[in-house]
């Protein structure tokens, strides 16, 4: 392949996706970026002018420095928290979907079990976590996953059940008229109808799984070799390493935003052809 061909290919590639560069300059990205930068400048000025000591409020530059400095400690912790979050989220998704389908197959199952799903949701995870950690004391990772799962699980079933039951009535009649089996109705009608609701549930759950993981880590405290970001925050606060606390906090926030962004992208991708939420309009 000659130079020319390569250049042409590159140009073609760039012009086939002009949106990438444009998107970075779009108001959707630009506006919050400006707000963020202004806030950081204000924060920095505030710290400088008032001369606050770093153990009360460190400036943004110090936080960033600490982040790089303690990267060796913080990054493994980030991976642990992320692992708990992802495993809990996947479990919540799979089980949530399965349970939702089960509930909508029989009114009796839904009647009998749904209140307990609500109970699981309304009990604060901080209150149950110690119990779960005692029960699963041999496997702290599993205990933390269970805690995060409890938090993440409910929005998925609540949304998915709503979706599975929000089927166009005429279409349901049509399936009945053509003698569709229960399985066909589920596969070709109920599940596609529920998809936007299910994806909405995922977006809520993704963030909640992270919150659940962090809360559970707090409750678990300093035990064990596997210590996530919450452990780093706790230790930093004991040692008055406030910049490190901020750095860990920053990583948690960044993780939460990334999870939300990924799930939003997934939702837009899966619904791009048909759902109002994913369709770009001129007006």
């Amino acid at each position: 392949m000659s130079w020319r061909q390569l250049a042409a290919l590159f140009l073609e590639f760039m012009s086939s996706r002009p949106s990438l560069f444009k998107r970075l300059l779009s108001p959707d990205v630009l506006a919050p970026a400006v707000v963020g930068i202004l806030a950081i400048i204000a924060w920095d000025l505030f710290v400088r002018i008032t001369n606050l000591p770093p153990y009360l409020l460190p400036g943004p530059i110090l936080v960033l420095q600490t982040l790089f400095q303690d990267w060796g400690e913080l990054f493994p912790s980030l991976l642990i928290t992320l692992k708990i979050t992802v495993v809990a989220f996947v479990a919540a998704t799979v089980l949530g979907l399965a349970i939702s389908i089960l509930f909508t197959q029989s009114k009796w199952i839904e009647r009998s079990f749904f209140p307990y799903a609500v109970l699981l949701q309304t009990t604060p995870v901080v209150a149950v976590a110690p119990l779960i950690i005692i029960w699963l004391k041999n496997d702290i990772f599993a205990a933390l996953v269970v805690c995060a799962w409890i938090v993440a699980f409910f929005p998925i079933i609540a949304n998915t059940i709503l979706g599975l039951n929000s089927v166009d009535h005429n279409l349901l009649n049509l399936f009945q008229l053509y003698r569709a089996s229960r399985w066909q109705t589920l596969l070709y009608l109920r599940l596609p109808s529920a998809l936007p609701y299910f994806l909405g549930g995922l977006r809520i759950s993704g963030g909640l799984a992270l919150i659940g993981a962090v809360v559970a880590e707090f409750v678990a405290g300093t035990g064990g070799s596997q210590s996530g970001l919450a452990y780093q925050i706790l230790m930093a606060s004991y040692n008055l390493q406030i910049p490190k606390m901020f750095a860990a906090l920053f990583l948690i926030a960044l993780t939460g935003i990334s999870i939300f962004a990924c799930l939003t992208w997934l939702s837009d991708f899966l619904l791009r052809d048909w759902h109002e939420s994913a369709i770009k309009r001129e007006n």
Partner: protein
Amino acid sequence: MSHNLTLTLSHVRKVYANGTVALQDMNLKIGASQFISLVGPSGCGKSTVLRIIAGLGRMSSGQLEWGGSYEQPKIAYVFQEAALMPWANVLENVRLPLKLAGIPKYKALAAASEVIALVGLQGSERSFPRELSGGMKMRVSIARALATKPDVLLMDEPFGALDEMTRSRLNSDLLSLWSQMRWTVIFVTHNIYEAVYLSNRVVVMAARPGRVVAEISIDVPYPRTEEFRTSPLYNQYCREVSHSLSAASLGMTDTSSDLQTASI
């Protein structure tokens, strides 16, 4: 498809759980390949009749009998809304009944493409419902109904939500399809002009309780042209249907109804 299918409804009665009498003693005979319209005010049970015929609703008492050489005729239903699956393109929507019947994919796709062409939508196979106009959506809905090669086509105010121009186009297209295929059509509408233009027979119904008050045969041969729609004969039929409708809605005993209808 040879058509000697007949349908007889005798003394059909439908009472809803809340005590509303939706249908009271409905009697109707429909001959082979007929185009029947049910006309009436809302609440007269015309949609209920369709649902009972389709087997989507049960009657409280009475009998429904298919005649001819049919044990169980193939029924297709067209709803007032197009009722398309928004996540599926036109081809997939039309293929749905065939897919549910377990027909092999290549056969089903060929059959679906064929009916899509029949309703004049070739080229739009890959479009999604949101990209289509109201009239096109209704064409897809009709194509889906035709995909199974039905013996009976039940249509529940299919063109009610469309503008007049689209409605009149679809009326002529439906009629020309019907003259080729000769299904039995039972067409629910509240539009008198549409009913007269399309049907062999217009059945006028009244509400509370739902019942048949008149049957008017439209003895005009098919194909019916645009000239028919502007002819005095057409107007005369429309007036006749309109009269029995308003007589029904005013209560049939009211003899002063003639005065009222004169102004309509």
